Protein backbone atom coordinates (compact mmCIF):
# COMPACT_ATOMS: atom_id res chain seq x y z
CA UNK A 1 0.00 0.00 0.00
CA UNK A 2 1.31 3.46 -0.86
CA UNK A 3 2.48 5.70 1.97
CA UNK A 4 -0.02 8.37 1.01
CA UNK A 5 -2.87 5.84 1.18
CA UNK A 6 -1.77 4.69 4.62
CA UNK A 7 -1.63 8.32 5.78
CA UNK A 8 -5.11 8.97 4.43
CA UNK A 9 -6.54 5.91 6.19
CA UNK A 10 -4.85 6.99 9.45
CA UNK A 11 -6.22 10.54 9.15
CA UNK A 12 -9.74 9.18 8.57
CA UNK A 13 -9.51 6.54 11.27
CA UNK A 14 -8.46 8.85 14.12
CA UNK A 15 -11.60 11.05 14.13
CA UNK A 16 -13.75 7.94 13.64
CA UNK A 17 -12.25 6.27 16.69
CA UNK A 18 -12.59 9.47 18.72
CA UNK A 19 -16.22 9.77 17.65
CA UNK A 20 -16.82 6.15 18.59
CA UNK A 21 -15.28 6.64 22.02
CA UNK A 22 -17.32 9.78 22.57
CA UNK A 23 -20.48 7.92 21.54
CA UNK A 24 -19.72 5.10 23.99
CA UNK A 25 -18.96 7.65 26.72
CA UNK A 26 -22.18 9.55 26.09
CA UNK A 27 -24.24 6.36 25.96
CA UNK A 28 -22.89 5.00 29.20
CA UNK A 29 -22.39 8.19 31.19
CA UNK A 30 -26.00 9.38 31.52
CA UNK A 31 -27.11 5.92 32.49
CA UNK A 32 -24.77 5.87 35.48
CA UNK A 33 -26.30 7.20 38.65
CA UNK A 34 -23.01 8.66 39.80
CA UNK A 35 -22.50 10.82 36.71
CA UNK A 36 -22.50 14.41 37.84
CA UNK A 37 -21.08 17.64 36.59
CA UNK A 38 -18.99 18.52 39.63
CA UNK A 39 -18.61 16.69 42.94
CA UNK A 40 -19.37 18.38 46.26
CA UNK A 41 -16.68 18.01 48.92
CA UNK A 42 -17.46 16.89 52.44
CA UNK A 43 -15.07 16.84 55.40
CA UNK A 44 -15.95 15.49 58.82
CA UNK A 45 -15.14 18.07 61.49
CA UNK A 46 -16.55 16.62 64.68
CA UNK A 47 -18.69 13.83 66.09
CA UNK A 48 -20.57 14.75 69.25
CA UNK A 49 -22.86 12.81 71.51
CA UNK A 50 -25.64 14.84 73.13
CA UNK A 51 -28.07 12.96 75.39
CA UNK A 52 -28.93 9.77 73.51
CA UNK A 53 -28.11 11.09 70.05
CA UNK A 54 -24.94 11.37 68.03
CA UNK A 55 -24.40 14.36 65.77
CA UNK A 56 -21.96 14.65 62.89
CA UNK A 57 -20.60 18.04 61.85
CA UNK A 58 -19.31 18.43 58.30
CA UNK A 59 -17.61 21.16 56.32
CA UNK A 60 -19.10 21.16 52.82
CA UNK A 61 -17.85 22.95 49.73
CA UNK A 62 -20.01 22.97 46.64
CA UNK A 63 -20.41 24.68 43.30
CA UNK A 64 -18.51 25.02 40.06
CA UNK A 65 -17.20 28.49 39.18
CA UNK A 66 -18.72 29.91 42.38
CA UNK A 67 -17.90 27.94 45.50
CA UNK A 68 -19.90 28.16 48.70
CA UNK A 69 -18.84 26.73 52.04
CA UNK A 70 -21.26 25.36 54.61
CA UNK A 71 -21.28 23.72 57.98
CA UNK A 72 -23.85 20.93 58.10
CA UNK A 73 -25.02 18.72 60.95
CA UNK A 74 -26.41 15.20 60.57
CA UNK A 75 -28.12 13.04 63.16
CA UNK A 76 -26.97 9.87 61.44
CA UNK A 77 -23.63 9.19 59.82
CA UNK A 78 -23.89 10.37 56.22
CA UNK A 79 -22.60 8.25 53.37
CA UNK A 80 -21.54 10.32 50.37
CA UNK A 81 -21.56 9.08 46.80
CA UNK A 82 -19.08 10.06 44.10
CA UNK A 83 -21.00 13.28 43.54
CA UNK A 84 -20.60 14.22 47.19
CA UNK A 85 -24.31 13.78 47.85
CA UNK A 86 -25.86 11.67 50.57
CA UNK A 87 -29.25 10.02 50.98
CA UNK A 88 -29.26 11.26 54.57
CA UNK A 89 -30.47 14.82 54.88
CA UNK A 90 -28.72 17.18 57.26
CA UNK A 91 -30.84 18.37 60.18
CA UNK A 92 -29.33 21.81 59.76
CA UNK A 93 -26.81 23.62 57.59
CA UNK A 94 -25.59 27.18 57.37
CA UNK A 95 -23.46 29.22 55.01
CA UNK A 96 -20.16 29.83 56.72
CA UNK A 97 -19.45 33.22 55.11
CA UNK A 98 -18.27 35.26 58.03
CA UNK A 99 -20.78 38.02 57.34
CA UNK A 100 -23.58 35.55 57.90
CA UNK A 101 -22.44 34.27 61.26
CA UNK A 102 -23.82 36.12 64.21
CA UNK A 103 -21.44 37.47 66.83
CA UNK A 104 -22.15 36.44 70.37
CA UNK A 105 -19.48 37.63 72.77
CA UNK A 106 -21.09 35.69 75.63
CA UNK A 107 -20.14 32.33 74.19
CA UNK A 108 -16.97 30.71 75.44
CA UNK A 109 -16.05 28.70 72.38
CA UNK A 110 -14.92 30.24 69.07
CA UNK A 111 -17.90 28.72 67.26
CA UNK A 112 -21.29 27.74 68.59
CA UNK A 113 -23.78 25.95 66.39
CA UNK A 114 -27.39 26.04 67.50
CA UNK A 115 -29.54 23.32 65.99
CA UNK A 116 -33.30 23.37 65.61
CA UNK A 117 -33.74 19.75 64.47
CA UNK A 118 -37.53 19.99 64.29
CA UNK A 119 -37.21 22.72 61.71
CA UNK A 120 -34.02 21.39 60.10
CA UNK A 121 -32.29 24.73 60.65
CA UNK A 122 -28.85 25.55 62.04
CA UNK A 123 -27.44 28.88 63.21
CA UNK A 124 -23.76 29.58 63.50
CA UNK A 125 -22.40 32.02 66.07
CA UNK A 126 -18.85 33.30 66.22
CA UNK A 127 -17.42 34.62 69.45
CA UNK A 128 -15.78 37.62 67.79
CA UNK A 129 -16.52 39.48 64.60
CA UNK A 130 -12.88 39.33 63.56
CA UNK A 131 -12.78 35.59 63.99
CA UNK A 132 -14.76 34.69 60.91
CA UNK A 133 -12.03 34.53 58.28
CA UNK A 134 -9.49 33.16 60.76
CA UNK A 135 -11.88 30.43 61.79
CA UNK A 136 -12.55 29.54 58.19
CA UNK A 137 -8.80 29.29 57.55
CA UNK A 138 -8.29 27.16 60.64
CA UNK A 139 -11.18 24.96 59.68
CA UNK A 140 -9.81 24.50 56.19
CA UNK A 141 -6.35 23.73 57.58
CA UNK A 142 -7.83 21.22 60.00
CA UNK A 143 -10.04 19.21 57.75
CA UNK A 144 -9.09 19.44 54.09
CA UNK A 145 -6.58 16.65 53.77
CA UNK A 146 -3.47 16.76 51.72
CA UNK A 147 -4.85 14.63 48.89
CA UNK A 148 -6.94 17.66 48.02
CA UNK A 149 -4.21 20.09 48.84
CA UNK A 150 -2.26 19.25 45.71
CA UNK A 151 1.41 19.40 46.55
CA UNK A 152 1.06 20.23 50.22
CA UNK A 153 3.69 18.04 51.79
CA UNK A 154 4.54 20.61 54.43
CA UNK A 155 2.32 18.96 56.98
CA UNK A 156 2.24 15.37 58.15
CA UNK A 157 -0.91 13.34 58.79
CA UNK A 158 -0.29 13.81 62.52
CA UNK A 159 -0.30 17.58 62.09
CA UNK A 160 -3.62 17.44 60.24
CA UNK A 161 -5.10 15.28 62.97
CA UNK A 162 -3.78 17.60 65.67
CA UNK A 163 -5.18 20.69 63.90
CA UNK A 164 -8.52 18.94 63.53
CA UNK A 165 -8.63 17.96 67.20
CA UNK A 166 -7.79 21.49 68.24
CA UNK A 167 -10.44 22.98 66.00
CA UNK A 168 -13.12 20.46 66.93
CA UNK A 169 -12.64 21.19 70.61
CA UNK A 170 -13.53 24.83 69.89
CA UNK A 171 -16.90 24.01 68.37
CA UNK A 172 -20.00 23.63 70.52
CA UNK A 173 -23.21 22.09 69.22
CA UNK A 174 -26.36 23.09 71.05
CA UNK A 175 -29.88 21.78 70.48
CA UNK A 176 -32.88 24.07 70.80
CA UNK A 177 -36.59 23.58 70.17
CA UNK A 178 -37.79 26.96 69.01
CA UNK A 179 -36.49 29.56 66.60
CA UNK A 180 -36.09 33.03 68.06
CA UNK A 181 -35.51 31.80 71.57
CA UNK A 182 -32.88 33.88 73.35
CA UNK A 183 -29.79 32.10 74.49
CA UNK A 184 -29.98 32.97 78.16
CA UNK A 185 -27.28 30.59 79.27
CA UNK A 186 -23.59 30.69 78.57
CA UNK A 187 -21.91 27.63 77.13
CA UNK A 188 -21.72 24.90 79.72
CA UNK A 189 -18.41 24.51 81.38
CA UNK A 190 -18.75 20.86 82.27
CA UNK A 191 -18.45 19.40 78.82
CA UNK A 192 -19.39 19.61 75.17
CA UNK A 193 -22.97 20.09 74.10
CA UNK A 194 -26.18 20.67 75.94
CA UNK A 195 -29.87 20.48 75.29
CA UNK A 196 -31.86 23.60 75.89
CA UNK A 197 -35.60 23.60 76.26
Amino acid at each position, binding site marked *: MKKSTKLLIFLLAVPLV*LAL*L*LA*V*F*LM*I*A*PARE*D*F*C*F*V*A*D*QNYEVKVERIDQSTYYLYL*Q*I*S*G*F*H*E*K*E*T*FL*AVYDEKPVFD*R*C*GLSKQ*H*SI*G*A*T*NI*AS*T*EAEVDTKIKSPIKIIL*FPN*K*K*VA*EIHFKDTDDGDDI*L*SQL*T*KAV*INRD*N*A*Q*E*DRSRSEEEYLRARQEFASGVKIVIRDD*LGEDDKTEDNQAGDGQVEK
Partner: protein
Amino acid sequence: MATADQVKMLEAANKCLAKRVDIPGAPLWHMGKVYVFESDESFKLLDNTVKYLECKARAKMPFEEDEKEFMKELFEASWWGGLYKGYKEAGKLSNHYVNGHGADIQIDADVYKTSVIVKDTMDALKAYIRKLAEGKQSRSFAHLRSNDTLFLQSEFARKLRSGRNVNMQGSLLEDGVLIAEQSNTRLKFADHRFHLSVSTSKASDKFYSTWKVESLYDFQPFSNNEEENKRHITHLPLGHKELNLPDGLSQYMTEIGVAKAFNHVASWDEWWK
Protein backbone atom coordinates in the same frame (compact mmCIF):
# COMPACT_ATOMS: atom_id res chain seq x y z
CA MET B 1 21.46 42.43 38.27
CA ALA B 2 18.18 40.55 38.84
CA THR B 3 15.83 41.79 41.57
CA ALA B 4 14.70 39.51 44.40
CA ASP B 5 11.28 39.17 42.76
CA GLN B 6 12.82 38.22 39.44
CA VAL B 7 14.99 35.58 41.15
CA LYS B 8 11.92 34.20 42.89
CA MET B 9 9.99 34.01 39.64
CA LEU B 10 12.85 32.28 37.91
CA GLU B 11 13.05 29.69 40.67
CA ALA B 12 9.30 29.09 40.43
CA ALA B 13 9.53 28.75 36.65
CA ASN B 14 12.38 26.24 36.89
CA LYS B 15 10.40 24.19 39.42
CA CYS B 16 7.53 24.00 36.96
CA LEU B 17 9.72 23.07 34.04
CA ALA B 18 11.13 20.22 36.11
CA LYS B 19 7.60 18.77 36.21
CA ARG B 20 7.03 19.19 32.51
CA VAL B 21 4.83 16.55 30.88
CA ASP B 22 3.80 15.80 27.31
CA ILE B 23 0.43 17.46 26.90
CA PRO B 24 -2.23 14.94 25.76
CA GLY B 25 -3.77 15.95 22.45
CA ALA B 26 -7.33 14.89 23.21
CA PRO B 27 -8.37 15.29 26.85
CA LEU B 28 -11.92 14.11 26.07
CA TRP B 29 -10.46 10.85 24.75
CA HIS B 30 -8.58 10.31 28.00
CA MET B 31 -11.52 11.39 30.15
CA GLY B 32 -13.62 8.86 28.27
CA LYS B 33 -11.02 6.16 28.86
CA VAL B 34 -10.94 6.89 32.58
CA TYR B 35 -14.73 6.94 32.84
CA VAL B 36 -15.56 3.98 30.64
CA PHE B 37 -12.49 1.75 30.96
CA GLU B 38 -11.18 2.99 34.34
CA SER B 39 -7.80 3.67 32.76
CA ASP B 40 -5.31 4.67 35.45
CA GLU B 41 -2.77 5.59 32.78
CA SER B 42 -5.11 8.13 31.19
CA PHE B 43 -6.02 9.54 34.58
CA LYS B 44 -2.38 9.97 35.56
CA LEU B 45 -1.72 11.78 32.30
CA LEU B 46 -4.62 14.18 32.85
CA ASP B 47 -3.78 14.71 36.51
CA ASN B 48 -0.08 15.36 35.89
CA THR B 49 -0.94 17.76 33.09
CA VAL B 50 -3.26 19.76 35.33
CA LYS B 51 -0.66 19.86 38.09
CA TYR B 52 2.03 21.03 35.65
CA LEU B 53 -0.22 23.75 34.23
CA GLU B 54 -1.22 24.81 37.73
CA CYS B 55 2.45 25.28 38.54
CA LYS B 56 2.90 27.43 35.45
CA ALA B 57 -0.20 29.48 36.23
CA ARG B 58 0.99 30.17 39.79
CA ALA B 59 4.36 31.26 38.40
CA LYS B 60 2.58 33.45 35.82
CA MET B 61 4.35 31.67 32.99
CA PRO B 62 3.12 31.77 29.40
CA PHE B 63 1.40 28.65 28.03
CA GLU B 64 2.37 26.83 24.84
CA GLU B 65 -0.29 26.40 22.17
CA ASP B 66 -0.91 22.73 23.03
CA GLU B 67 -1.27 23.65 26.72
CA LYS B 68 -3.85 26.31 25.87
CA GLU B 69 -5.69 23.82 23.67
CA PHE B 70 -5.75 21.25 26.50
CA MET B 71 -7.40 23.68 28.90
CA LYS B 72 -9.89 24.80 26.26
CA GLU B 73 -10.90 21.22 25.52
CA LEU B 74 -11.40 20.49 29.22
CA PHE B 75 -14.07 23.16 29.34
CA GLU B 76 -15.59 22.07 26.06
CA ALA B 77 -15.84 18.53 27.47
CA SER B 78 -17.94 19.96 30.33
CA TRP B 79 -20.42 21.17 27.72
CA TRP B 80 -20.93 17.62 26.47
CA GLY B 81 -21.39 16.21 29.94
CA GLY B 82 -23.71 19.03 30.98
CA LEU B 83 -25.88 18.69 27.92
CA TYR B 84 -26.64 15.02 28.49
CA LYS B 85 -27.18 14.96 32.22
CA GLY B 86 -29.57 17.84 32.88
CA TYR B 87 -27.00 20.56 33.40
CA LYS B 88 -27.44 22.27 30.07
CA GLU B 89 -27.07 25.79 31.47
CA ALA B 90 -23.86 24.91 33.31
CA GLY B 91 -22.53 23.17 30.20
CA LYS B 92 -23.48 26.08 27.96
CA LEU B 93 -21.76 28.58 30.25
CA SER B 94 -18.65 26.42 30.54
CA ASN B 95 -18.34 26.22 26.77
CA HIS B 96 -19.01 29.94 26.37
CA TYR B 97 -16.15 30.68 28.76
CA VAL B 98 -13.68 29.39 26.17
CA ASN B 99 -15.59 30.06 22.96
CA GLY B 100 -17.68 33.11 23.68
CA HIS B 101 -15.01 35.84 23.44
CA GLY B 102 -16.52 37.56 26.45
CA ALA B 103 -19.88 38.30 24.82
CA ASP B 104 -23.01 38.44 26.97
CA ILE B 105 -25.36 35.48 26.62
CA GLN B 106 -28.83 34.51 27.66
CA ILE B 107 -29.71 31.33 29.46
CA ASP B 108 -33.03 29.57 29.99
CA ALA B 109 -34.96 31.33 32.77
CA ASP B 110 -36.44 27.99 33.86
CA VAL B 111 -33.30 27.29 35.85
CA TYR B 112 -34.23 30.21 38.12
CA LYS B 113 -38.02 29.99 37.92
CA THR B 114 -38.01 26.47 39.31
CA SER B 115 -35.78 27.38 42.27
CA VAL B 116 -37.20 27.50 45.82
CA ILE B 117 -35.14 30.51 46.94
CA VAL B 118 -36.01 32.42 43.77
CA LYS B 119 -39.75 31.71 44.14
CA ASP B 120 -39.66 32.68 47.82
CA THR B 121 -37.75 35.89 47.07
CA MET B 122 -40.17 36.73 44.28
CA ASP B 123 -43.05 36.30 46.73
CA ALA B 124 -41.29 38.54 49.24
CA LEU B 125 -40.61 41.22 46.63
CA LYS B 126 -44.21 41.04 45.41
CA ALA B 127 -45.50 41.51 48.94
CA TYR B 128 -43.16 44.48 49.34
CA ILE B 129 -44.27 45.99 46.03
CA ARG B 130 -47.91 45.51 47.01
CA LYS B 131 -47.28 47.32 50.27
CA LEU B 132 -45.52 50.19 48.51
CA ALA B 133 -48.36 50.45 45.99
CA GLU B 134 -51.05 50.48 48.71
CA GLY B 135 -49.25 52.81 51.02
CA LYS B 136 -48.75 56.50 50.84
CA GLN B 137 -44.98 56.30 50.55
CA SER B 138 -43.46 58.21 47.70
CA ARG B 139 -41.03 55.38 47.17
CA SER B 140 -41.22 53.93 43.72
CA PHE B 141 -41.59 50.20 43.25
CA ALA B 142 -40.76 50.40 39.54
CA HIS B 143 -37.24 49.01 39.82
CA LEU B 144 -36.16 46.90 42.75
CA ARG B 145 -33.38 44.50 43.49
CA SER B 146 -32.88 41.87 46.16
CA ASN B 147 -30.07 44.01 47.66
CA ASP B 148 -32.35 47.04 48.05
CA THR B 149 -31.68 48.35 51.57
CA LEU B 150 -35.27 49.07 52.51
CA PHE B 151 -36.46 45.76 51.11
CA LEU B 152 -33.83 43.92 53.14
CA GLN B 153 -34.97 45.75 56.28
CA SER B 154 -38.62 44.88 55.62
CA GLU B 155 -40.53 42.08 57.34
CA PHE B 156 -40.80 40.29 53.98
CA ALA B 157 -37.05 39.95 53.52
CA ARG B 158 -36.41 39.24 57.20
CA LYS B 159 -38.44 36.04 56.87
CA LEU B 160 -36.00 34.87 54.18
CA ARG B 161 -32.95 35.58 56.30
CA SER B 162 -33.47 33.08 59.07
CA GLY B 163 -35.13 29.76 59.76
CA ARG B 164 -34.29 28.29 56.38
CA ASN B 165 -32.69 25.01 55.51
CA VAL B 166 -29.96 25.81 52.98
CA ASN B 167 -30.14 22.34 51.43
CA MET B 168 -33.83 22.42 50.60
CA GLN B 169 -34.64 26.14 50.58
CA GLY B 170 -31.47 28.15 49.88
CA SER B 171 -30.94 31.47 51.59
CA LEU B 172 -30.93 35.24 51.21
CA LEU B 173 -27.73 36.78 52.56
CA GLU B 174 -27.57 40.12 54.36
CA ASP B 175 -26.22 41.81 51.21
CA GLY B 176 -29.22 40.64 49.17
CA VAL B 177 -27.43 37.76 47.43
CA LEU B 178 -29.51 34.64 46.85
CA ILE B 179 -27.75 31.33 47.47
CA ALA B 180 -29.19 28.42 45.48
CA GLU B 181 -30.68 25.57 47.49
CA GLN B 182 -27.99 22.90 47.56
CA SER B 183 -30.31 20.13 46.44
CA ASN B 184 -30.88 22.05 43.19
CA THR B 185 -27.75 20.94 41.36
CA ARG B 186 -28.95 22.30 38.03
CA LEU B 187 -29.00 25.83 39.44
CA LYS B 188 -26.00 25.69 41.74
CA PHE B 189 -23.65 24.56 38.97
CA ALA B 190 -24.95 27.26 36.63
CA ASP B 191 -25.31 30.13 39.07
CA HIS B 192 -24.68 29.53 42.73
CA ARG B 193 -25.10 33.07 44.04
CA PHE B 194 -26.87 36.02 42.38
CA HIS B 195 -29.06 39.07 42.81
CA LEU B 196 -32.66 39.09 41.63
CA SER B 197 -34.06 42.29 40.13
CA VAL B 198 -37.58 43.23 39.08
CA SER B 199 -39.15 46.01 37.03
CA THR B 200 -42.83 46.50 37.69
CA SER B 201 -45.71 48.56 36.36
CA LYS B 202 -49.29 48.66 37.62
CA ALA B 203 -52.37 48.40 35.46
CA SER B 204 -55.68 48.66 37.31
CA ASP B 205 -55.54 46.03 40.06
CA LYS B 206 -52.76 44.01 38.47
CA PHE B 207 -49.02 44.28 38.30
CA TYR B 208 -46.79 43.40 35.40
CA SER B 209 -43.25 42.43 36.33
CA THR B 210 -40.13 41.56 34.44
CA TRP B 211 -37.76 39.53 36.58
CA LYS B 212 -34.09 39.41 35.78
CA VAL B 213 -30.92 37.72 36.93
CA GLU B 214 -27.65 39.03 35.57
CA SER B 215 -24.45 37.39 36.71
CA LEU B 216 -20.77 37.42 35.94
CA TYR B 217 -19.18 34.10 35.00
CA ASP B 218 -15.65 33.99 36.26
CA PHE B 219 -13.35 32.01 38.52
CA GLN B 220 -11.52 32.86 41.73
CA PRO B 221 -7.84 33.69 41.06
CA PHE B 222 -5.02 32.12 43.07
CA SER B 223 -4.66 33.76 46.44
CA ASN B 224 -1.63 34.20 48.69
CA ASN B 225 -3.75 32.48 51.32
CA GLU B 226 -3.27 28.78 50.59
CA GLU B 227 -6.19 27.78 52.77
CA GLU B 228 -8.44 29.84 50.54
CA ASN B 229 -6.98 28.16 47.46
CA LYS B 230 -7.87 24.77 48.94
CA ARG B 231 -11.50 25.78 49.13
CA HIS B 232 -11.47 26.70 45.45
CA ILE B 233 -10.72 23.43 43.71
CA THR B 234 -13.27 21.94 41.32
CA HIS B 235 -13.54 18.18 41.62
CA LEU B 236 -14.50 16.56 38.32
CA PRO B 237 -15.62 12.99 38.91
CA LEU B 238 -14.39 10.56 36.25
CA GLY B 239 -15.71 7.17 37.16
CA HIS B 240 -13.57 5.83 40.00
CA LYS B 241 -11.31 8.91 40.01
CA GLU B 242 -11.58 12.65 40.54
CA LEU B 243 -9.69 15.22 38.50
CA ASN B 244 -8.93 18.23 40.69
CA LEU B 245 -8.98 21.46 38.74
CA PRO B 246 -7.90 24.55 40.72
CA ASP B 247 -10.13 27.55 40.14
CA GLY B 248 -7.00 29.70 39.96
CA LEU B 249 -5.91 27.76 36.89
CA SER B 250 -9.34 28.25 35.31
CA GLN B 251 -9.06 31.97 36.06
CA TYR B 252 -5.53 32.15 34.63
CA MET B 253 -6.96 31.10 31.29
CA THR B 254 -8.34 34.65 30.98
CA GLU B 255 -4.85 36.07 31.42
CA ILE B 256 -3.36 34.03 28.58
CA GLY B 257 -6.20 34.62 26.13
CA VAL B 258 -7.81 31.17 26.28
CA ALA B 259 -10.97 32.26 28.07
CA LYS B 260 -12.92 35.38 28.87
CA ALA B 261 -15.21 36.20 31.76
CA PHE B 262 -18.65 37.24 30.60
CA ASN B 263 -22.11 38.28 31.73
CA HIS B 264 -25.07 35.95 31.42
CA VAL B 265 -28.66 36.96 31.84
CA ALA B 266 -32.08 35.37 32.18
CA SER B 267 -35.42 37.13 32.36
CA TRP B 268 -39.09 36.27 32.54
CA ASP B 269 -42.37 38.21 32.73
CA GLU B 270 -45.61 37.77 34.57
CA TRP B 271 -48.90 39.37 35.47
CA TRP B 272 -49.83 39.07 39.12
CA LYS B 273 -52.12 40.57 41.73
